[in-house]
């Protein structure tokens, strides 16, 4: 039991100038060692030297004490439930955190809102519907890490810090798409139950493994492709900038998700089947998303340049986008060491042009 009683005796001694100085004498830190500062500044990688850089696979304590500090023996247990490094770690974490902090942007300041042109009604409707969808889905990628953050052992602090940047990124994405829907005389469009089902699947994940596979790898992979398509199809330079800035953030999250899964499977290949099962479920909903008018039609209309032209070329454009999404997702699974080309849970007609041999 931690002693939290006030030590009046110590106060009296300190008044007489008799300091304890135990914290000074007992220090076991690597005193005198200095990091080499990188060209871009002092990075997390720079300070990962000596014992400070050693991230234990299975920390003994469940404390918020900084990793590498001299820790009191009677620190309280914080109740962390994610206490195995491979559950959250990835080899690119430290760099992704630095990148995220360095490349933050403001949806208020960095988007030239006053340059939004007046758009034809069908185009404005389409961009507003797309913005509605994205404003809806982006927040789950803040809610999910936030739900798990406090459960993750503090010895994996760099992973927690990266997830904090993701929470901020997603708040900004929710903000920027809400702003776009409301900025140009349009407004919010339709929110679909099937989309909410997919978000619920992520939020209700029974483990960080499950949620991360569904969100970082599958969900954000899809959204990254939608952001890329959004930039391509943008009716003005304002939306182009929005999508470009968002895609940068999203690509970081996907990079974490892919490399985290790789790290996880390299250390415990026996759980590959669990991940396959998570993605089987996710892909089932992905199929429904690909056939949801509110998801497909706005992009088809933007691609065609109007609702009339969309009847001719819009479906073709949507097919190209779907093919791109699926191919990139499967390539990420390959990289992570979870080949799914033979197993992917999509109807055959949605796999035209996709290599389905591992």
């Amino acid at each position: 039991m931690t002693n939290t009683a006030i030590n009046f005796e110590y106060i009296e001694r300190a008044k007489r100038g008799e300091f304890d100085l135990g914290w000074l004498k007992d220090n076991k830190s690597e005193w005198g060692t200095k990091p080499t500062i990188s060209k871009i500044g002092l990075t997390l990688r720079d300070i990962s030297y000596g014992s400070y850089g050693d991230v234990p696979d299975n920390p003994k304590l469940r404390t918020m004490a900084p990793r590498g500090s001299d820790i009191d023996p009677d620190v309280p247990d914080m109740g962390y439930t994610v206490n195995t490094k491979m559950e959250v770690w990835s080899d690119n974490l430290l760099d992704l955190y630095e990148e995220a902090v360095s490349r933050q942007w403001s949806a208020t300041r960095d988007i030239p809102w006053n340059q939004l042109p007046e758009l034809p009604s069908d185009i404005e409707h389409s961009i507003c519907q797309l913005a509605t969808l994205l404003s809806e889905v982006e927040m789950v990628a803040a809610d999910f890490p936030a739900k798990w953050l406090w459960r993750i052992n503090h010895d994996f602090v760099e992973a927690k810090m990266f997830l904090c940047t993701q929470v901020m990124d997603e708040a900004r994405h929710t903000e920027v798409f809400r702003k776009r829907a409301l900025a140009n005389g349009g407004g919010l469009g339709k929110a679909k139950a099937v989309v909410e089902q997919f978000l619920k699947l992520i939020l209700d994940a029974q483990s960080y493994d499950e949620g991360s596979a569904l969100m970082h790898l599958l969900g954000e992979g899809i959204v990254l492709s939608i952001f890329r398509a959004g930039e391509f199809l943008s009716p003005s330079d304002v939306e182009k900038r929005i999508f470009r800035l968002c895609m940068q953030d999203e690509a970081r999250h996907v990079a974490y998700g892919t490399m985290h899964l790789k790290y996880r499977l390299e250390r415990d290949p026996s759980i590959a089947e669990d991940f396959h099962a998570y993605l089987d479920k996710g892909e089932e909903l992905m199929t429904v998303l690909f056939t949801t008018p509110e998801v497909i039609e706005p992009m088809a209309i933007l691609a065609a340049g109007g609702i009339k032209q969309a009847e001719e070329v819009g479906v073709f454009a949507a097919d190209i986008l779907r093919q791109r999404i699926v191919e990139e997702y499967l390539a990420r699974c390959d990289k992570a060491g979870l080949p799914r080309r033979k197993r992917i849970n999509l109807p055959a007609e949605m796999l035209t042009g996709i290599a389905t041999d591992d």
Partner: protein
Amino acid sequence: MTTTETEVKFPTAEFFDKLVVSANKTLSDKTLGFAILKLGIEIVSPNSINRYVIDFDGYEINFDGQVESFDNTEVEAVVTGPQLSYFDMFKDIQQNSMATGSNTFNALTMAGFPLNVQGQDQVATDKVFRFAETIQHFLDSAHQMPTIVEQ
């Protein structure tokens, strides 16, 4: 490959050298954040293939030169496509001070044509788009250069 003060030939090492200088003038304010990426640019014409290496090195960009092959470079991803598509992109940038419509870097590479981004693997390909705004800034810097004429 001679140039006048009002013209620069494309594609040449001189062109990319000047483009890097132009981009670095404004990149130093650090507002876009740092970028770390070694990017290969492959420009294909009916008679030749030209390859260049661009090094996004924190808050500055370096031109690592023209190469015969990317094999012995540390290039993480290569952008490849026909010379005409690159040239049209730079013409658009010079006319509008920035790439517009389907001439942005992302738009040109979105479907894998006319330009394609090919990383060592999907994570490397995705990495290029982690720096989409910096790469666009780099390309848009061509608007401050002398008139680009096709080689």
